């Protein structure tokens, strides 16, 4: 525990104890208000796991609240004990979450937001019409019990659990799965994260907590009807609260809920007219001037105490040791045994067509273990598409790809990564809002399940040093220059501990010295660690230094395969790619 954390933890414990003692202090109004804040917090925090952590804005979050409220109420009215009713609420809602998740997660980005939003009026209609179950428009009248104190304490308990859950999620690998999905789903899969279960799990978790909020609040209110729990007029409130405070931060939902709920109550009690206008204006102004939320604004960041509230999750687990200036000569990669006579990758008649456009045409290719093969050809000849077929970004239309003896057909992208295929992208695709260190740590975590994030972040330092990015260790990936991003891309691919490394035009845009460094790296990983490399490149001087042979593609078809100095004299290659002027040069 660092020095700055101790006062916060103490303050947190004191706050929870104080809140728990609130009912004893007698002011029922304060308790009621605090109760609504607690419920709002549960809703807000559970929403943020899906939105802030994973980047999916679920505007139908209230559906889970409502389903939980109804399930609880129905169970309670049917004379089941309260504890059972709460379990029923969570159980039913979790099932609903799974059922909703599968179709909904087919949508991305804004479409997901639209789609989930539409679920709310659907739920309302269902509640109105499924009268035998939900009692329709009459609503459900719960037996009146004086549960104010116990529901309050229960809500407080759930809040504490929700908060601890947030802390825990961000300490384990799951949190990084969420964050990698948030940044770039395809890349997350390619480095070994299996994303659909991650999405469903986080949605179910989020739903469970929302269901508890709905159950506890309806217990306290002793009456629910469809409009109360599914009404559109309350649907956006938890969303606004989280965004107000700072989505994706540990204290964001808490600060947002406290601020907006407090403001709302103050307006309700003290302002006679246009309270909603004022409330709306505040939200609007925050959106305009502090869209990252209060905790990300410059004035909070500047303050010492408030600024600590605004720390990103990774700042809680990263060791703040200063950057180690040593350059590691060895990477924590396994030294693979290499048999040059065994093929590592075999493409048999691979064909990839997009509608009428054939991008890869009947390619037969064998890559031996330990080779460095250059893959060249004019732009648009299918080099990147071939890479995409190997790493399963696309499923080939025909043909087979065998890797280390296994047929890759029907394997998922993350399974390919686990088998040992790593790749870089032509235009670097780092996880933009993660730091350089985190970018490397994610594949490390997914190739060795025994590593905790903290350990993975430690190990990542070696890779970062190898890529000579140590001064930028804790910088956000999107703040890097192009060359730095390419270095990061390469290091991240290495962190996948690959047997086969697919390098896609890593040298373009670099200075000659930088190019030489990459060439050295590629040679190094093959010589010292036995990694096989396929390198797509246009810069011949780079290829010439290190490749064993070169394969030429043209319009999706393989037209030449051999040593570099032979291939460049090949007539077809000259005609289609190098140009006749090159004939005399090489």
């Amino acid at each position, binding site marked *: 525990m660092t020095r700055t954390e101790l006062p916060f933890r103490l303050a947190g414990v004191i706050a929870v104890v104080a809140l728990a003692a609130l009912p004893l202090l007698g002011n029922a109004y304060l308790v009621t208000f605090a109760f609504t804040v607690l419920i709002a917090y549960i809703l807000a925090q559970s929403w943020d796991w899906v939105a802030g952590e994973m980047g999916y804005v679920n505007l139908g979050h209230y559906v889970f609240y409502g389903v939980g409220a109804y399930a609880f109420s129905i169970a309670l009215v049917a004379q089941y004990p309260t504890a059972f009713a709460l379990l029923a609420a969570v159980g039913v809602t979790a099932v609903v979450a799974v059922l909703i998740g599968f179709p909904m997660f087919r949508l991305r980005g804004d479409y997901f937001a639209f789609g989930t939003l539409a679920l709310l009026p659907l739920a309302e209609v269902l509640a109105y019409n499924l009268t035998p179950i939900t009692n329709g428009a009459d609503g459900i009248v719960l037996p*009146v019990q004086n549960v104010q104190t116990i529901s309050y304490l229960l809500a407080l308990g759930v809040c504490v659990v929700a908060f601890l859950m947030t802390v825990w999620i961000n300490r384990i690998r799951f949190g990084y799965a969420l964050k990698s999905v948030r940044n770039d789903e395809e890349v997350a899969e390619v480095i070994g994260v299996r994303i659909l279960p991650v999405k469903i799990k986080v949605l179910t978790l989020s739903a469970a907590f929302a269901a508890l909020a709905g159950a506890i609040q309806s217990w306290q209110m002793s009456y629910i009807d469809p409009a109360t729990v599914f009404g559109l007029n309350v649907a956006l409130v938890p969303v606004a609260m989280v965004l107000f405070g700072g989505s994706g931060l540990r204290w964001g939902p808490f600060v947002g809920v406290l601020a907006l709920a407090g403001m709302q109550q103050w307006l*309700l*009690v003290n302002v006679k007219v246009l309270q909603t206008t004022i409330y709306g204006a505040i939200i609007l102004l925050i959106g305009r001037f502090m869209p990252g939320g209060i905790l990300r604004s410059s004035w909070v960041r500047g303050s010492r105490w408030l600024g600590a509230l605004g720390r990103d999750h990774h700042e809680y687990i990263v060791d703040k040791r200063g950057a180690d200036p040593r350059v590691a000569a060895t990477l924590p990669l396994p030294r693979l045994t290499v048999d040059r006579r065994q093929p590592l990758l075999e493409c048999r008649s691979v064909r990839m067509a997009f509608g009428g456009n054939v991008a890869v045409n009947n390619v037969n290719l064998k890559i031996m273990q330990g080779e460095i093969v250059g893959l060249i050809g004019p732009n648009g000849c299918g080099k990147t598409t071939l890479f995409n077929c190997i790493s399963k970004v696309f499923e080939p239309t025909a043909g087979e790809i065998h890797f280390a003896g296994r047929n890759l057909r029907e394997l998922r992208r993350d399974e390919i990564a686990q088998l040992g295929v790593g790749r870089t992208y032509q235009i670097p695709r780092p996880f933009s809002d993660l730091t350089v260190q985190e970018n490397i740590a994610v594949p490390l975590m997914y190739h060795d399940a025994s590593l905790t994030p903290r350990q993975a972040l430690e190990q990542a330092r070696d890779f970062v040093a190898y890529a000579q990015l140590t001064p930028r260790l804790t910088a956000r990936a999107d703040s890097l220059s192009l060359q730095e991003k390419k270095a990061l891309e390469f290091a991240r691919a290495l962190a996948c501990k690959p047997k086969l490394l697919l390098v896609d035009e890593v040298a373009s845009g670099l200075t000659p010295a930088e190019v030489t460094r990459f060439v050295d790296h590629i040679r190094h990983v093959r010589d010292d660690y036995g990694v096989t490399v396929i390198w797509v490149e246009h810069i011949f001087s780079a290829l010439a230094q290190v490749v064993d042979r070169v394969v030429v593609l043209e319009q999706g078809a393989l037209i030449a395969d051999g040593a570099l100095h032979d291939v460049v004299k090949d007539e077809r290659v000259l005609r289609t790619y190098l140009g006749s002027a090159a004939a005399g040069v090489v």
Partner: protein
Amino acid sequence: MRMLRKILTIAAAGSCLAAFAGDAAAKLGSCNEPIVFGTTISETGPFSTLADRWRGMTEIFAEEVNRSGGVQVKACNKKVPIKFVIYDDQSVPAAAVSLYEKMATVDNVDFFVGPDWSSLGGPVPPIAEKHKIPIVMGNVATPSIYDRGFKYVWGTPYPVVPRWSERYFDMLSKMNPKPTSIFFITHDNPVTKGITGVWSKKAEAQGLKIVGSETFSQELKDFTALIAKVRAAKPDVVYISSFDGPSVPLVQQMRSLKVRAMDVHHVMLTGSLYRQVGKDIEGMTGELSWYPGIKGPYSDLVETVMQRSNISMFDYIWTLGRLSSYLVMVQAIEKAGAVDREKVREALYKGTFKAPAGDIVFDERGFPNNGAFTVQMVGGKVSVVWPPEVATGKVVWPSPSWK
């Protein structure tokens, strides 16, 4: 700038806390302080469409009552003025709950009146019960809400579902040519569904054959399919059990699709409906709890209040429910003879209270017996047509505009 922001933050935090501090507690039962009625009104949010200008109406009510000194309290040997504490519940139950708690514990009101609507009438009574503060709710019509064994809870929905169309069906039994079939169109809402539930049974008992019953949801805009069914059934009476707003497209489309019947009856025929459908409303019958020109106890007070607050009884039918809750509470205090919650509770229990349209009698659950008069729109004007003793106009049967 940063200093300014710091100051603003601290000020905001401070005022948040101050919001929870109370006013100096009004001493309950004191003869020298005004009697405080605590209430919330849905001034914003979806229910505000039903509660137009009620804050002003409430304050004017207090003014008018206080004009003569206030409420006669025997124990104080004088008239004590009344005062309202009014908050906006924003149509959100959780907000209403916290506001009633505040009024009970921080503002220290003497009695509760309101709220309205079942969504709020569900969660709020337990608070009154807990603090033992008598509450006379307004337009809370769902009977099951009164079945919870509360001792401090009453309500004055106007009219109550079991008596809603009593006079109308009485009228039907005496009309010539006699209607023999009836089609129910119901808005999906507990009140209106309750009305249909009760009155479809009574219609059958009266010898009317139910040739159709359809329910529509709040947002339905295209009634073509439903109207097709009505036309196919060819009923003598079309009974629309709906709030005025959602039924506007229904009425308009019934007109344009030339629905024919001896009568089209709307359980909430209001001025608001009239304004929106215009001439389409001609010939329709409806229910009204009270109307200008009715003479009964407190009718002067009610008329003055409505006139001053610029509300027409025909416009928004919920106002009488609201006002009645105030009238009942005032009378209960007079009957109790003291500003004492327990005495007022006893006075309210199974009590009978005066109101312009007839006595309000509570049963042991706190549920009243309010009825309504049958009205008809003729020539753009609304007149009471049944019962004949109080009618201001003659009923036109069958309705010519729907023939």
